[in-house]
């Protein structure tokens, strides 16, 4: 099992606890974590299923390489962490 966690800044927008998922890729892990969470899904992905520009994803503390297809591998025990850009200053 891998975990999918949304950064605190996203949680304050749309609450979502840490999800336990079984998935070989970031795309599949994200799909599992967002299942039935339409508001959060719309915040993370656009209507074409692409990662929104103000969102970045990290696996085991490192930024993913494949933003376009989210094909980066997720291993058993991996931590997928979803972050949004903040703009306030």
């Amino acid at each position, binding site marked *: 099992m891998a975990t999918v966690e949304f*950064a*605190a*800044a996203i949680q*304050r*927008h749309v609450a979502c606890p840490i999800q336990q998922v079984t998935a070989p890729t970031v795309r599949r892990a994200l799909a599992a974590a967002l299942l039935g969470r339409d508001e959060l899904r719309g*915040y993370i992905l*656009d209507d074409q299923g692409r990662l*929104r*520009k*103000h*969102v*970045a994803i*990290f696996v085991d*503390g*490192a*930024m993913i*390489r494949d*933003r376009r297809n989210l094909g980066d591998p997720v291993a058993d025990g991996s931590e997928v*962490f979803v*972050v*949004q*850009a*903040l*703009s*306030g*200053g």
Partner: protein
Amino acid sequence: MNDAQLLRYSRHILLPQIDIEGQERLLAARALIIGAGGLGSPAALYLAAAGIGTVVLADGDTVDLTNLQRQILHRTDSVGKTKVLSGQNTLATVNPECGVIALHERLSGERLASEVAQADVVLDCCDNFATRHDVNRACVEAHKPLVSGAAIRFDGQVSVFDASRTDSPCYHCLFPEGDDANEERCAITGIFAPITGIVGATQAAEALKLLIGCGESLAGRLLLLDGLAMEWRSIRVRRDPECTVCGSRSDA
């Protein structure tokens, strides 16, 4: 340095990582601060107090009463004045040796490029994505280190995008520019005052380290602050070889 300066900066000079040589680098340095609000306030105060030779403050806004809860560069009698002149006045009382250039404008285009080119370090303390991407592009083109901070509600982010290093990502590598960005403003969503202080002071620390040449900068790392849990998280950011801003650099 004269005797007064040796005394004034003695607590820096005592640190072997800084010493007289490092302090002299600060005295000769020029820092560009984009935004004189929540983040720019503590950043400017620390840079001026630490002995930066020239601080360029750029902001097109005036001080509003609602700013005073967190924007510690400004005082009650500054309401209605431009933020940069208010900041210039405050910094003059903190350290009159620090030269402060006040630019009452939202820098963009050639004006931004010119100011970035003259700076030794740039601090992005602004409050919108469009400026963040403009500043990032200018820093990449001029090969200048960018210390980026952001804050909203109880959350903060800070990183360094150092275009003078071949392995350092730029802001666009992390968050590509797009028209779907969820722009949240402190005026709408609120901001816990000390979060801007923590993030702005961290930006000042990174800028000073870059100028002195000590320690490890945040280049390649993004720090996330959860102010409610009061926890920092560090994650690794890599350079995107297909980045439309820095990917075409000859050293990509």
